[in-house]
């Protein structure tokens, strides 16, 4: 009777297994094959070999894209953590107008990245809001076409990214702080702790788990999904100045038809991601995965 029940219940898995095989199973196996195949246009052929990986290792654009990706993530993530921990702390401490801020910080979180990209593109235009503000406060000589200038384009994208991340991370951290026992703060205050000491010695340790979670999620995001920002704001330009690793894969796969290199690189990125998630899960035992 119990066994019959299990057999019935196996059919419950069937539709999702078919979908998983369709989107993950077969494509991932094919991706391994493609990364080793010899490509003639859009057709993978034999012999198999590591030649795509060798070509990739010699490709200077790939290396530069990787470095750019690491710069974007490496600046965005630490800056976001620092700002958001402080902001979440003072939201918890009921800064004047905290309910208003809580609503405002939720706005970027639900905006699609495409929409954010378009608004920031307007913001950075030669006649856009940023240059208007600069001229208004007397720094007009710094006004420039932010997304066309080789020196300013990457920082401009990083600032757009931080804008979203701070809003997201603040709400993420704040939602965790609602579980923190207020008596921790009362006790520290009685001992004469300043607000800065409270942030460092009480809030920060309480948020350790969720900060780890955030850093892992954001790292994964910037390693393989900055595509949308880049596609909307700069399309990798000017020149190659904002081509990140996943935009490089996109260009090679769908524009230059270098499918061998694109497959090899995206497989490498996937392996790195699985590795990062594995390390994180074994560190935190998965308790914070949500």
């Amino acid at each position, binding site marked *: 009777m119990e066994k019959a029940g299990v057999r019935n219940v196996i059919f419950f898995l069937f539709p999702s297994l078919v979908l998983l095989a369709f989107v993950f199973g077969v494509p991932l196996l094919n991706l391994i094959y493609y990364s080793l195949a010899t490509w003639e246009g859009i057709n993978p052929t034999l012999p198999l070999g590591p030649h795509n990986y060798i070509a990739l290792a010699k490709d200077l654009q790939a290396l530069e894209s990787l470095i750019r990706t690491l710069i974007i993530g490496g600046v965005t993530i630490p800056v976001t953590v620092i700002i958001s921990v402080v902001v979440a702390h003072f939201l918890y401490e009921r800064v004047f107008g905290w309910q208003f801020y809580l609503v405002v910080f939720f706005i970027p979180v639900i905006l699609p990245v495409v929409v954010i990209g378009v608004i920031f593109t307007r913001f950075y235009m030669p006649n856009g809001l940023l240059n208007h503000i600069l001229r208004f406060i007397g720094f007009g000589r710094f006004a420039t076409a932010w997304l066309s200038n080789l020196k300013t384009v990457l920082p401009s994208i990083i600032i757009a990214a931080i804008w979203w991340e701070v809003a997201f991370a603040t709400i993420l951290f704040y939602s965790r702080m609602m579980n923190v026992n207020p008596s921790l703060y009362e006790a520290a205050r009685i001992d004469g702790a300043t607000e800065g000491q409270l942030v460092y010695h009480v809030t920060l340790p309480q948020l350790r788990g969720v900060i780890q979670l955030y850093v892992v999620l954001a790292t994964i995001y910037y390693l*393989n999904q900055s595509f949308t920002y880049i596609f909307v704001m700069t399309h990798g330009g000017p020149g190659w100045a904002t081509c990140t690793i996943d935009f490089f894969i996109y260009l090679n796969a769908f524009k230059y038809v270098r499918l061998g290199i694109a497959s090899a690189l995206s497989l490498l990125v996937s392996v790195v991601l699985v590795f990062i998630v594995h390390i994180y899960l074994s560190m935190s035992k998965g308790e914070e995965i949500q």
Partner: protein
Amino acid sequence: MKKQKLSLAKIAIQLLFIILAFSILSMFYYMLVNAGKTNIEYAQSEFSLPGQLRFDSYLTAWFHDRMGLAFLNTFIISAGTVVLTLLFGSLAAYVLAVRGIRYSNLFSRIIVALMYVSPMGLVIPLFIWIGKLGLVDNLYITILIYSGFYMPFSIFLLSTYFRSVPRNLFDSARIDGCGNLRMLFEIVIPLAKSGLLLLAVLNFYYVWSNLLFSLIFLRSPENVTLMVAIARYSGKYMAQIPQRMATLVIATVPLAVAFSIVRKQFIKGGLMGSFR
């Protein structure tokens, strides 16, 4: 003296909040205000309020730019994915979290790993495969792709909600001769319906705002989604700003409505991480 120092720090903190809120609201303001202008008003000033409340640019965007069609396509794909992931995800999560089979644990672990597979890595082989089958530019195939892609997260999230249903309910129901399907639809799902609602909102948001998959798998102007249409029109040479901004508002409203229903649950339920 010490007291004054303290209030200076307080002012600095308040200033930080005001700058952050201003930077968010000014972007929002720019989008809303310019969506309500005529092209002439926009040319005169990019930042001032429009002379009167107008919805012309929304109508132009909706009909002339065919954003109405893009809206409908996006809605069909998002809603279709939500239905499939809720239905199939519930069935699978029931097996893994409630019934338990021999390889439940291994299966759950694979599910978690799949949540982090790079979409860019999947798109290349999927596109070649679907191209060979001649199924590119098909809304229904795109729904299946999205459903499969968000299935790991759906099963994972539903499993955590299904696990919180008290187990003694199952035992007593089973003694009463309750079959698996009835158990799922009459006991588990009603008790976990807040989880299903949250998952529906999240999956709707993911598909609605996704650029990459819709860009690759839908090609013709008849099948274009809002995000693809917006991304194509954007860039440095964007013209007719009022109707473009109106399009951004149109693309945002459904998400704002969906999230305003469940915002509190997100913050309380520790679900914020799912925005990544």
